[in-house]
């Protein structure tokens, strides 16, 4: 998957996400330290770093699953503040996939996909189901639509989760370690789905340790450690010529085997 020539960037000059001087604390613990980041529309960013480096917290701040204490986060020209209207507006435009999928176990796959369009977008049920089937076909599991999430494999569940997010027709997708809870053969099917998504020009922020994926689709790889962005660069530069010592150490550890 390390062929960089397939990387057909859809990056534009329009700014999708802007973080200026963002700080966050968990109690006394300083998780995010002065994060400055601009994401262009259509840009695909992979965030990596050792565990506890604040990478998950960073993307969870973008749809306000976590609250930041200092600095500005502007998503799609809407500023994230305590204002509930702004938060709802941003969450409608930002899809998210989690490490543990977070599908709703009491609803069928189809109902999982139609729930938000029906209740948040006020879409008629029939239309929502058509859209849901369209995206379930895209993630290649339309035949599982009437099953419950508990009856699917981990990889299938994560693909349902991706389809569920896409049903809201988001402008930005966040992935929080989407393959970390999966068996190796299922990682491939989820990554294939994500690569296809990346080729449509979706703005994507992925926290992942899948370096092959980063090489193939990322426009930019960001390395975080200790709550700071240590280094960011295009994938080729990042992997072949890491600047900081910490990045070199991290890469040597995860690429060693």
């Amino acid at each position, binding site marked *: 998957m390390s062929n960089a020539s397939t990387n057909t960037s859809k990056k534009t000059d329009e700014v999708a996400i802007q973080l200026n001087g963002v700080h966050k604390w968990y109690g006394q613990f300083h998780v995010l330290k002065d994060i400055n980041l601009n994401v262009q529309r259509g840009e695909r960013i992979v965030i990596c770093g050792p565990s506890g480096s604040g990478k998950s917290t960073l993307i969870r701040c973008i*749809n306000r*699953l976590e609250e930041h204490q200092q600095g500005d986060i502007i998503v799609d020209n809407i500023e994230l503040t305590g204002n509930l209207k702004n938060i*709802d507006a941003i*969450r*409608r435009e*930002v*899809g*998210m996939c*989690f490490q*543990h999928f*977070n*599908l*709703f*176990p*009491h609803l069928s796959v189809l109902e999982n996909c139609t*729930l*938000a369009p029906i*209740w*948040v977008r006020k879409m008629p049920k029939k239309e929502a189901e058509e859209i849901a089937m369209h995206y379930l076909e895209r993630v290649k599991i339309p035949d599982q639509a009437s*099953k*419950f*999430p*508990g*009856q699917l494999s981990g990889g299938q569940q994560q693909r349902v989760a991706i389809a*569920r*997010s896409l049903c*809201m027709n988001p402008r930005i997708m966040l992935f929080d370690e989407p393959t970390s809870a999966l068996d190796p053969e299922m990682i491939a099917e989820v990554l294939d789905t994500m690569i296809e998504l990346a080729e449509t020009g979706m703005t994507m922020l992925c926290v992942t340790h899948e370096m092959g994926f980063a090489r193939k689709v990322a426009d930019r790889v960001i390395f975080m450690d200790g709550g700071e962005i240590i280094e960011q660069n295009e994938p080729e530069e990042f992997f072949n010529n890491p600047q900081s010592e910490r990045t070199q150490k991290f890469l040597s550890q995860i690429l060693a085997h």
Partner: protein
Amino acid sequence: MSVTEQQYAPGEHPDLPPPLGEAGLIAWFKKRLFSSVGNTILTLVAVFFLYHVLSAIIFWTLTGATFTGETKADCDLGGACWLVIGDRFHQFMYGLYPTDQYWRPNLTFILMVVAIVPVLFDNIPHRGKFLLFSAIFPFIAFYLLSGGWGLETVDTDEWGGLLLTLVLGVTGIVASLPIGIVLALGRRSNMPIVRTLCVCFIEFIRGVPLITILFMASNMLPLFLPEGVNFDKLLRALIGVALFSSAYMAEVIRGGLQAIPKGQYEGADAMGLSYWQSMRLIILPQALRIVIPGIVNTFIGLYKDTTLVSIIGLFDLIGIGLVAVADVKWRGLAPETYAFIALLFFISCFAMSRYSLWLENKLHTGHKR
């Protein structure tokens, strides 16, 4: 195992015939009840006791009991004297409800069944329309039972027996679930005032016995109200019972809410659902399913606790029973009276517990924890 077992070369061992007599009634008895001397003795002792207990029960309730007759003198067979139940059957059912108006509680009961079925079972046709009826049923029931507007007015003092028990039990159950849900959500709220209010209410109600709440509602509340303002006694008891069980219900439901993984809340948030939407569509359906046993437990407890209203002078089943037992004509027939009341309660409570089992099975969606 015998020591002199014959030796065979590998692969030469003959196949054993399939075991005989493993199935069938006699084999079953032999295997489970008479497999050894000790087991045989235990079986015989158990049969001996069962025989004595069961035959005594059957004699008292059926074979030795008197079903026909006029007075207690007719009961000379040595078993139960069910005449008291027959004599006072109408009181057990309706209390002091006017005799010529019995059709009203009867009709209400039939309508209640029609109203409850669509709530309990979701696979009946035209469920939506029936649910609409369920929603307006309380008002119909109130009109039918208490009268006014063309029907003879029947004071709530005259309601009694099974009618009153059902009114208290069903109203308490129907009111306590939604109030309990609101209290449970309030107790987990981020808003300090809402949370404090809910905690205070729940802890206060749980900290006192139901009987004191009923006494306060029936005796002390009128002292605080201005002269002339008078609440109906039954209404006061109803409010007391409903508030009491809603506090318990709130804690049961809170247990369910805490069992829902954080990821479910985050999944709902990330999709842009509002607080109430995510509670109604995502969190509560799962939380309530987990605590069905606890909810039904509370329902059954509440239903049986309604008997305490007999102490504040309402004639529910127990109240009517007390009157029947005190009757000179039927002196000494307390066992019959209480056995009958117990049977009525058992039927309702057993039905509730079976329904909850059925519901648990139905709501299983292949994600056993």
